[in-house]
């Protein structure tokens, strides 16, 4: 009962802040439109180059264009959801801690991590979400993929847990700022590794492959689960790996975060 009350409260607060964020959009229309257009353009350019590459070569280490599109589209979903709900972690790394603005989150009767993340609902993420869904809609019929109820459930689970791989990586790297005061560039460096994950890991050499599988496991946000839906295989490894990677990263993230909060030094005033 207590658990449900807690969930209810989380949803309620999210709803309130989303409402406020949408109001904010109306206040700063031009900024929002530019941001959303920018996101769409970025994805459009990426896809454009991908199609140029595939107009020259028939396949990529045995992966067809449609398959790549599916993986690419799948990759965008968890990325977009993380972007939508946990974007404020970037601000932790860049300025919230450095300027001492973290103080106010500590004086509120909610967990500071929740207080920070709930504050920003990053609508720019809808650009990625729209492109991701569009790519899936295009590639699924072409690949004649058949989604059984089990696979639909696995698909949802994979997207859900893959989101927390992104969030976990951001949580660990942004928490470093509690000690170093600023970790924005560290977040950026690790976050950008996700670019590798949109393509079949088989095209990379062993070093990069093991990095994106075991160290910064972004391969589990896209290629591994997506390839299961395309070509089948062992769900326990492909989707289960995503669950394990998400659980491990989130757990480490929470630990580092909590340690960080205790080490927080505020700023002079």
């Amino acid at each position: 009962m207590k658990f449900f009350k807690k969930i209810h409260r989380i949803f309620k607060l999210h709803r309130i802040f989303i409402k406020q964020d949408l109001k904010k959009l109306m206040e700063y229309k031009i900024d929002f439109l530019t941001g959303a257009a920018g996101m769409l353009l970025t994805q459009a350019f990426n896809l454009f180059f991908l199609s140029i590459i595939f107009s020259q070569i028939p396949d990529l280490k045995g992966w067809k264009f449609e398959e790549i599109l599916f993986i690419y589209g799948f990759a965008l979903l968890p990325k977009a959801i993380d972007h939508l709900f946990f974007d404020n972690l970037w601000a932790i790394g860049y300025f919230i801690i450095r300027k001492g603005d973290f103080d106010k989150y500590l004086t509120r009767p909610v967990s500071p991590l929740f207080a920070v993340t709930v504050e920003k609902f990053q609508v720019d993420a809808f650009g990625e979400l729209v492109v991701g869904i569009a790519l899936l809609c295009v590639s699924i019929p072409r690949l004649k993929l058949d989604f059984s109820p089990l696979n639909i459930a696995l698909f949802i689970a994979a997207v859900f847990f893959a989101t927390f791989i992104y969030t976990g990586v951001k949580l660990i790297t942004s928490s470093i700022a509690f000690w170093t005061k600023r970790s924005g560039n560290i977040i950026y460096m690790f976050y950008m590794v996700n670019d590798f994950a949109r393509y079949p890991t088989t095209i990379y050499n062993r070093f990069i492959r093991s990095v994106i599988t075991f160290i910064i496991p972004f391969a589990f946000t896209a290629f591994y689960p997506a390839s299961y839906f395309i070509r089948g295989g062992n769900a326990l490894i492909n989707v289960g790996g995503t669950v394990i990677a998400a659980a491990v990263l989130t757990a480490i993230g929470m630990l580092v975060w909590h340690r960080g909060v205790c080490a927080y030094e505020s700023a002079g005033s």
Partner: protein
Amino acid sequence: MIHVQNLKKEFKKTVKEPGLKGSIKSFFKPKNEIITAVDDISFDVSAGEILGFIGPNGAGKSTVIKMLTGILTPTSGSCEINGKIPYKNRKSYVKEIGVVFGQRTQLWWDLALRETYTVLKEIYEVDDESFKKRMAFLNEVLELESFITSPVRTLSLGQRMRADIAASLLHSPKVLFLDEPTIGLDVVVKDNIRQAIKSINENEKTTVILTTHDLQDVENLCDRIVMIDKGKKVFDGGIDLLKQSYGQSRELRFVPVAVSDADKLNYGREFSLGESDLRVENDGHTVSVRFNNDKVSVEKILSYTLKTLHVKDISVTDADIEEIIKGIYKSGVSPDA
């Protein structure tokens, strides 16, 4: 109510040599130094009391407040408020306190002020009925009416401060921490804020801890003051004791038209003031006269000065807190007096 025992906070600071070269050197070979911001401070505050927490810039006031509000974890020592340890029982503890940092805002920059309160209402789980009553009350004491629909970013400093104080009181806290609530405000707003603090303290028996550089705040509000300097407690006692020590001291500053005229003045003889009640300094341009306001009135000093010579500029001010601290050191009031 509040029990602080041997509280201590140390920060590690990287010492850098000046310039870019120094920065680069420290990047590769950092030299650390331990800074003790708060050094072994103990005091108690009883329920319903207004405690003034004063000291010069960098004395460690804010650091103490931050430890009492659960923002910082003490290096050693303990503090307990209402039986709770701030940094351990943080979530349930902060429901019972209100915090305002005058230099910062906890309001949402882009939202209309009214929205800020509805968001805080949900965060603090205030029910609709109490919220309505509370807003009406806060509206009355802090006069929010005229700007409650404006976005926070458009508020003036005075409005923002009132809004921030209202935000900290929304959930009817038992203890209110105010870190420089009157900083940078004009006299009218300062007075308004003091009245509000007073009426909240009287109506709801809210315990208030406030830091300030404004002696007027202390005189109007505080029952007791704790003074710290360089992280150490140097004074703890009633406001009367402080006034006796130095509070009545005023300073007259003026620029004579002809510097040599200043020699004509002899305050000591005119008002028969002893050495402890009078100090005159002349730097060849400005003359400053510090005198005991109990022994001689500002009016008398002023009229005597203006009768004796011509001045280009003249002003009378309260002795500032740093002076008082120096005075307390000199007069040897023991810390636990």
